[in-house]
């Protein structure tokens, strides 16, 4: 947790526009990254990111200064994404051919591998996907993920292990594992 989060929050609560911008800039990449990975749509991700920060500033007074700010912000992001996904599941899907995908198709093996992982992650169930993204893409520790997802650390570990096994299984099935690594030594 950045050491000056509490001071920054205090300045935000006083209505200092510059501090508000600092706080948004500090957490926006992670919030947007999570939203984009979960929603897989740039415009949706930006809209939800904006909603997340509106909610963050609306309830900033309720933040417990003795706890880290990032999991609290990410928890709000997780909840907003869940709500958005459940709403989207209820309304008809509109084809958005203009949206940019996470990875442009190139012949590079690494990029192909990344695209395969991205596809595999997108097929995980939402809880597993959140745990996977927060751990592997955003590098958050188990404790913070547990706070953000409001689950015990043990549950997060279980989710993440199962998520990994599903992704690894998918990589094996899709032939993304070099055979020389598997052959008998």
């Amino acid at each position: 947790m950045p050491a000056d989060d509490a001071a920054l929050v205090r300045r935000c609560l006083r209505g200092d526009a510059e501090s508000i911008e600092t706080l948004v800039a500090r957490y926006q990449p992670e919030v947007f990254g999570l939203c984009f990975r979960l929603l897989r749509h740039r415009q949706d991700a930006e809209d939800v990111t904006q909603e997340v920060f509106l909610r963050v500033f609306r309830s900033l007074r309720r933040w417990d200064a003795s706890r880290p700010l990032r999991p609290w912000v990410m928890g709000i992001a997780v909840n907003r994404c869940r709500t958005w996904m459940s709403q989207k599941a209820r309304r008809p899907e509109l084809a958005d051919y203009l949206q940019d995908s996470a990875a442009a198709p190139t012949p590079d093996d690494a990029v192909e591998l990344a695209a395969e992982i991205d596809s595999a992650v997108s097929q995980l169930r939402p809880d597993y996907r959140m745990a996977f993204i927060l751990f592997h893409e955003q590098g958050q520790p188990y404790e913070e993920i547990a706070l953000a997802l409001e689950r015990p650390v043990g549950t997060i570990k279980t989710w993440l292990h199962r998520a990994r096994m599903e992704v690894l299984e998918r990589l094996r099935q899709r032939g993304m594992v070099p055979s020389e690594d598997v052959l008998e030594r």
Partner: protein
Amino acid sequence: MTCHDCQILLQQSLDHETIADSAGLEQHLAGCADCRAWQAAARQLEKGIRHLPRPEPTPELTRRIVRAVLAERRMRRRRHVLTVSALAASLLIAVFLAAYLLRPDTRQETLAVQTPPASQPRTPENMETPEPSLSLRDSVAEVAQLTLRKADETVGQARSLWPNAAPKELRPVPSPLTPPVDPLREAGSSVTAGLEPVADSARRAFNLFLREIPPVRTEEKRKS
């Protein structure tokens, strides 16, 4: 080392933890193709994650968010001020109303001011110093007396004005007036005359009906 142990170590390596029994792991992997495949996939996963594109928001997103946050704050502050003002006004009105209504002698004073005691003549002096307590009956009597007095004054004023205007303009009233009950009597007799044929027919029909009914033999009935 078993395949299950190997899976645990695989998870540990993906958690970026140091593997304590790396020699045992190597030994197991050398003899287990399935675990080797899992290990190779795990390495691919780590490599692929490093190459996952980092989604970047549009450059103006931060400004857009800050603008939205500030706009919402302004709106909330305005709403808050309005709410507080409305509450304060309501409270003030309630306090004034309560202070007025809960004054201990409000009703008595009001009555006393409007109705001075019947025994004393009504003068400006005793209007300023009313008696504090009056029964309802006294009050009603006083109001009636006051009304009569005012009516007398009005009649007196009207009489003083009357001789100049009224006698020339008033027409003589025809005397005696036609009693209002006469038209009703006439209407009643007309209705009776109109219904007479119907009533006669009905009477005749009823008499015929009575004649057709056989007489009741009460003695026979008693015997049976």
